[in-house]
């Protein structure tokens, strides 16, 4: 028995070690993730409190509160935007230094309570303007991200592996012998996957939404638009990966290489606002970031079409670019 066991063990080890792409991805993927996470979450200790600041002129720079440690000061566009942030507990306090110092603090916010103590210690004369409002629960904040992530996996792996399987089995070669064009085939794949994803996402939205008692603040039509254009972009991305390769290892590796950074950096699980600027630029390139940003704006803030138009344009342009590249590089058969 031991002899037979060793024979199979040895053969399987040889197979694994000689399958270079798989071996390479097995070694490099975790390494890459650790390095990437180090970049994203590394650096000096993060501030404990976030304070929105109105009036960042030279005169305000000498205010003693601005020199407190562990407080991050973020410029705020105007009072209305700042109030929105403080009532939704996205910032812990809003400070206005354009005239005599005044501040808004959310009386429902524990962190607001503490950071207010720090402010009063450095400027006892600052005028207090209390507001109330609950933070968006994490589960509600997470919901759009999880739906979008599910879409991403379905788009990339669902299309990428299916086309690869068709090519390897010779089914694509058989289709090539008919009047069907590459464009027709790819379009049919896109539409088929799109309808499935929209159906599944709608079911998940209704099901999970009912369980967590989630109600979208914005329009369902806009959410549908985001889901359709976002799915198109990610399906097209999956097709570019599957367009010419015939190896599961290579396609699997490339798909992992795309999905892992998107899953970590697109803000599915946590906001990457505090990470280095270049990380945010990289994240902005990913279609998933655009989908999540637009979906959260509509679902949590009730944003309208104007707010999400840049996201939609980006997704539409990437769809066309990915599809054009996919059609150009498409191979019906294994050479």
């Amino acid at each position: 028995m031991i002899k037979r066991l060793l024979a199979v063990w040895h053969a399987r080890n040889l197979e694994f070690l000689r399958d270079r792409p798989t071996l390479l991805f097995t070694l490099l993927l975790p390494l890459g993730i650790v390095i990437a996470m180090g970049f994203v979450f590394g650096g000096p200790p993060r501030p404990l409190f976030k304070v929105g600041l109105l009036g960042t002129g030279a005169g305000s720079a000498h205010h003693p509160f601005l020199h407190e440690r562990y407080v991050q000061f973020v410029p705020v566009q105007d009072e209305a935007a700042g109030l929105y942030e403080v009532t939704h507990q996205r910032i812990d306090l809003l400070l206005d230094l354009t005239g005599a110092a005044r501040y808004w603090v959310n009386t429902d916010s524990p962190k607001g309570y503490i950071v207010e103590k720090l402010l009063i210690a450095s400027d006892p004369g600052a005028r207090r303007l209390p507001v109330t409002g609950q933070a968006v629960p994490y589960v509600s904040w997470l919901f759009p991200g999880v739906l979008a992530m599910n879409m991403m996996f379905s788009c990339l792996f669902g299309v990428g592996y299916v086309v690869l399987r068709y090519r390897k089995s010779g089914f694509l070669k058989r289709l090539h012998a008919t009047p069907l064009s590459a464009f027709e085939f790819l379009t049919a794949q896109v539409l088929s996957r799109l309808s499935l994803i929209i159906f599944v996402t709608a079911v998940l939205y209704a099901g999970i939404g009912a369980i967590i008692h989630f109600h979208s603040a914005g329009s369902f039509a806009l959410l549908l638009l985001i889901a359709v254009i976002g799915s198109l972009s990610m399906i097209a991305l999956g097709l570019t990966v599957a367009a010419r390769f015939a190896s599961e290892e290579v396609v699997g590796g490339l798909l992992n290489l795309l999905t892992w950074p998107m899953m970590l950096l697109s803000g599915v699980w946590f906001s990457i606002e505090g990470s280095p600027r270049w990380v945010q630029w990289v994240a902005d390139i990913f279609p998933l970031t655009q989908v999540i940003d637009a979906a959260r704006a509509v679902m949590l803030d009730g944003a309208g079409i104007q707010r999400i138009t840049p996201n939609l344009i980006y997704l539409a342009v990437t769809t066309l670019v990915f599809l054009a590249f996919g059609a150009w590089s498409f191979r019906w058969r294994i050479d």
Partner: protein
Amino acid sequence: MPESANLEVHNLVKQYPAVTAVDGVSFAVPEGICFGLLGPNGAGKTTTIEIMEGILPPTSGEVRYRGEPLGPRFREEAGILFQKTALQEFLTVRQSVALFRGLYRHGLNVDEVLNLCALDKLAGRDNRKLSGGQQQRLLLAIALVNDPKVLFLDEPTTGLDPQARRNFWELVESIKARRKTIILTTHYMEEAQLLCEQIAIMDRGRIIAQGPPQRLLREHFAEVLLELPRQEFPEVARRLPLKLIDASDRVEISTDDLDGTLRTLMEARVPLRNLRIRPANLEDLFLELTGKELRA
């Protein structure tokens, strides 16, 4: 090239980095016949037929269909059965045929094709649960779904048991009766002899003989072949004035004077208890032309 040629192949060459798979092949396939491309594995048959199907680009040379380069008309009018084809999974036989029917503007209706290929009773079965012979019939049905004017069959009966092979031949005969042009590759000589009006024999990427099977046999062989086991054929008998052909396990003697040849063998005391007398076939022709057996 003949005026009625349905397909013309002009000086086809297909080179791969390490090998020339097709080396200057030319022939014409007249309308309404079954044309066989014969040869052993690796002779270049599949490469030639895939270039003719428009699947593989040639390194040089040209294929013309009805006098024109292969184009959209050819795609509409050609039916193809590849040597190996997988179908989309989780589809029934009927759904598989309907999928391909949807890709053509004209053709037979699905029921007609199922009936033609004796698949009516299997219409609702998952295409993964078919036997080898049933699978080949389904692939043939898919190749016929556009009612093609030209049908390519690449080694259609390889791997089938003898009964399934005979059933498939009957099916091809019924398609021939519809005046389709058929291009068939095979390494079964019996298949080619039964189905093909014309053949081209390929070896190492080249055509080494071409024409109607009976004419080729008449040209290369006398009336009959005598077969004797190699181990029973004495070395001294090789000096007799006979036309000998060496096969792996036997010695063949080609003759048009059966009585005289038998007399010569008996006088030379060659044991004749395992002697077999038969007409020459394409297998013998290949052996004669190349000095090697077809299935070697």
